[in-house]
């Protein structure tokens, strides 16, 4: 059913309320929990993510199902492994070295996993959240 509710505040049955801005700007616009193995990806759960595109063993594009309003969004990410300290690392945005386009667009964001020892870019537990 289509429709629009216009309100400045929302409130629950216990009387707790918040400004509508908090619901609009404080909720994630996209997120995903996934594994990357270096040549494939397994998505456990996601929201507003249509696909991931691997461009090399540790760089991949997260494509949004519905475009965001602009590219000034926040990307939060962390990554973890089950293999011990030598495989700890991070996940974040990156700009492809051979490209002139931004790593953040309204339809996708380019992400990269980086191991702290630069040896193992595949991670068991990747988490990315987009806020706008």
């Amino acid at each position: 059913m289509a429709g629009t509710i216009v309100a400045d505040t929302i409130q629950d049955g216990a009387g707790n309320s918040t400004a509508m801005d908090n619901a609009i700007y404080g909720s994630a616009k996209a997120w995903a929990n996934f594994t990357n193995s270096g040549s494939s990806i397994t998505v456990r759960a996601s929201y507003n993510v249509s696909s991931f595109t691997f461009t090399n063993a540790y760089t991949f594009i997260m494509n949004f199902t519905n475009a965001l309003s602009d590219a000034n969004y926040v990307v939060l990410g962390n990554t973890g492994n089950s293999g011990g300290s030598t495989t700890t690392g991070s996940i974040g945005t990156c700009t492809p070295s051979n490209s002139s386009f931004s790593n953040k667009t309204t339809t996708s964001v380019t992400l990269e996993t980086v191991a702290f020892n630069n040896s193992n870019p595949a991670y068991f537990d990747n988490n990315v959240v987009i806020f706008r």
Partner: protein
Amino acid sequence: MTQVIIHTNSNGGVSVTVPTGEISVQAVLEKDCPAGAIIVDDSTLPQGADAQFFDAWELSGSTVTVNFEKAKAIKLAQFNSKAVEEAQKRQLNTLAGLENTPDDATWSASLTAGRTAIANATTTAELVAI
């Protein structure tokens, strides 16, 4: 069996697009992939040791193969990167008056042996084992 979408990227390698299931594979093909990308079953992609050399994959028609010379170059770069890391650690050990195990001569010989093994490898499984 999972369907994925593949295409040759600007580096001459293969890009693999994995749908999350929020929309159909066909819709992902049209929305997220360039013209010429094709839908394949992921079981047709290189498996096992070949899968560990994703950056050496090449696409011909609808078939993805591993460029073995690229795979050897990737393995050599990884091997040398670890050698540099170990060399730094050994240098710090020396400065701290700590013993390096194995000794420098033995370690140096192992590097030579590893590089020779990479040069002489004939399969990706051999490369992975080094």
